[in-house]
């Protein structure tokens, strides 16, 4: 167990509906991320991927409540953790690469200030030392003229550049775990590839574990060693990428593969996930909610 950075066990989250238990958002989710590995979390839009990410970080919407289960991150229980304790972990041991680099940077603050603040907070570094570290990080993410970029405001950088800045910042305090919630969805296709390549390069160099949230199985197949497939807030398949790609067990995963574009297959060969597969999963989710409602 010593080499796991994140263990989610039997996590339940539901929509708060007065005193009653609302519909489930996450249903019995279990997931493990080992030291230094990249774990893919795949699922369709609305499956609950971001909710898992937010649950780990403790930034779930007010209306959503964790009703059961545990999130163990580096030996600390994140569910119900006091805010002051959580703040010591966030940014230092866990960091986030957000989905939309256009809105994730503060328009009123310079890039340099937004990169160095986290190091000054957690590592207690001086302005000068954090500045030098930020320069080195920008070089690592292949930003030229780093000194000038640190003085810029977000609106002066392209989307791809901003995502590079955010990736660099995520690595600033050498965290043990980085959560990347669809880090390329907001970017255009050519930039997406560069950013993914960069993410893997950074991960190899720093040995950081990454939970890569995406709806693209193709990306997971290329980037990750292990993966979890999620639908309707339930994990439907989990394991090593090499196993699952060759022998997907669940009909949903097979359908997801069939729906993933590949260079060796014409686009019109893509088929959507069949209705009956989705219906079966939703049926299962409803049964699950009924069982829990009876339980509470």
């Amino acid at each position, binding site marked *: 167990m010593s080499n796991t950075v994140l263990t989610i066990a039997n996590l339940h989250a539901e929509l708060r509906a007065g005193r009653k238990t609302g519909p489930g958002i996450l249903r019995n989710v279990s997931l493990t991320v080992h030291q230094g590995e990249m774990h893919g979390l795949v699922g369709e839009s609305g499956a609950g991927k971001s909710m898992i990410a937010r649950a780990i*970080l403790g*930034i779930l919407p007010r209306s959503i409540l964790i009703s059961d289960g545990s999130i163990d991150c580096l030996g600390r229980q994140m569910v119900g953790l006091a805010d002051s304790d*959580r*703040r*010591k*972990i*966030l*940014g*230092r041991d866990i*960091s*986030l690469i*957000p989905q*939309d680099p256009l*809105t*994730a*940077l*503060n*328009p*009123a*603050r310079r890039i340099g200030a937004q990169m160095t*603040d*986290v190091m000054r*907070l*957690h590592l207690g570094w001086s302005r000068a030392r954090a500045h030098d570290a930020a320069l080195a990080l920008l070089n690592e993410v292949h930003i030229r003229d780093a000194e000038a970029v640190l003085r810029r*405001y977000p*609106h002066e950088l392209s989307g791809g550049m901003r995502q590079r800045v955010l990736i660099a910042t995520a690595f600033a305090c050498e965290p043990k775990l980085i959560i990347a919630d669809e880090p390329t969805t907001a970017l255009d296709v050519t930039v997406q590839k560069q950013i993914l390549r960069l993410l893997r390069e950074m991960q190899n160099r720093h040995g950081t574990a990454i939970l890569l949230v995406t709806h693209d199985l193709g990306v997971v197949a290329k980037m990750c060693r292990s993966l979890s497939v999620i639908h309707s807030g339930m994990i439907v398949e989990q394991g090593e990428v090499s196993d699952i790609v060759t022998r997907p067990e669940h009909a949903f995963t097979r359908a997801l593969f069939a729906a993933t574009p590949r260079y060796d297959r014409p686009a019109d060969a893509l088929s959507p996930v069949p209705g009956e597969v989705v219906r079966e999963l939703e049926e299962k989710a409803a049964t699950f909610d009924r069982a829990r409602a009876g339980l509470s």
Partner: protein
Amino acid sequence: MGAFLLRRAVEAALTLIGVAIVVFVLVRVVPGDPIAMMISPGASEADIQALRALYGLDKSILAQFFIWAGHAVTGDFGTSISLRQNVVSLILSRLPATLELAAAATALAVALGVVFAVLGIMWSRRFPEKIIDGFNGVVLAIPDFIWALAFILLFGVLFPLAPISGRIDPRIEFEFVTNFYFVEALLRGEIAVLADLFAHGWMPALALGLPLAAIITRVLKGSLDQAMVEDYVTMARVKGFGRLRIVVGEALQNAAIPALTITGVQFTFLVGGTVLIEKIFSYPGIGNLAIDAVINRDLPLIQGLIVTFAVIFIFVNLSVDMMYALLNPRLRHG
């Protein structure tokens, strides 16, 4: 920047001309005769006509305007009819008092407004937020002169804490070089004089500033609330920053832009408010002067004062626009 300033200068000139024309005509068509205010009861018709001719009031309004405007562009606004002094030097000697009062009121309003907006957000969705909102709603409904009267009753009469009239204790022996008493006392390090200025100034400044403080609180709290759900705020949370640091360090600057707009607009009312407040506290500024000028139908003085107020508004608007650029880096270039 050069083109911007030039455009603003042209706008300012047009505004001033417009204000001058409107005021010139207005003060001459409303009832009331400056000559009637200054003559003794037994004056003959010939005396009245002579006075009228002396002040040029026998000419047509158009002719009067061009004579006045011709002098005004050279900086000569004539002589006050009731005080028999040069209008420009009269206004310049009183203006610093009003500027200091308005600046103090604005500073108080901004400080109170920002503090209560930030506190309200800090306590968002908890009980103290309701207290702040409720209290703010009450303050929002009370005009400045009511505060002035309430302060006088409370701290002047009921619990005599502070002097309720004037700008400075006349017994204080201190030779001011300028009429910016506060700035001067501060620069020369005169603690006793400063203390007396404070004692005289806090009530009028607070009365003037409170309505603006309430408006700033309301607007700023609303825009802070919106800013707190932005992605960059989530990022700051995920970096491990505490709530106060996030509200002040991340959200405030972005949220300040709408609040600044409303502050700029409301500042006009604040300056207008000095007229009544200065009268109530016998504070020797141009507001007080304006009331006397109107009572005496002192046309040259009224005109000079109105132009002064217009110039103040133009400068305030200009500095508000400059502050936008300061708050929003996207406006800084081009």
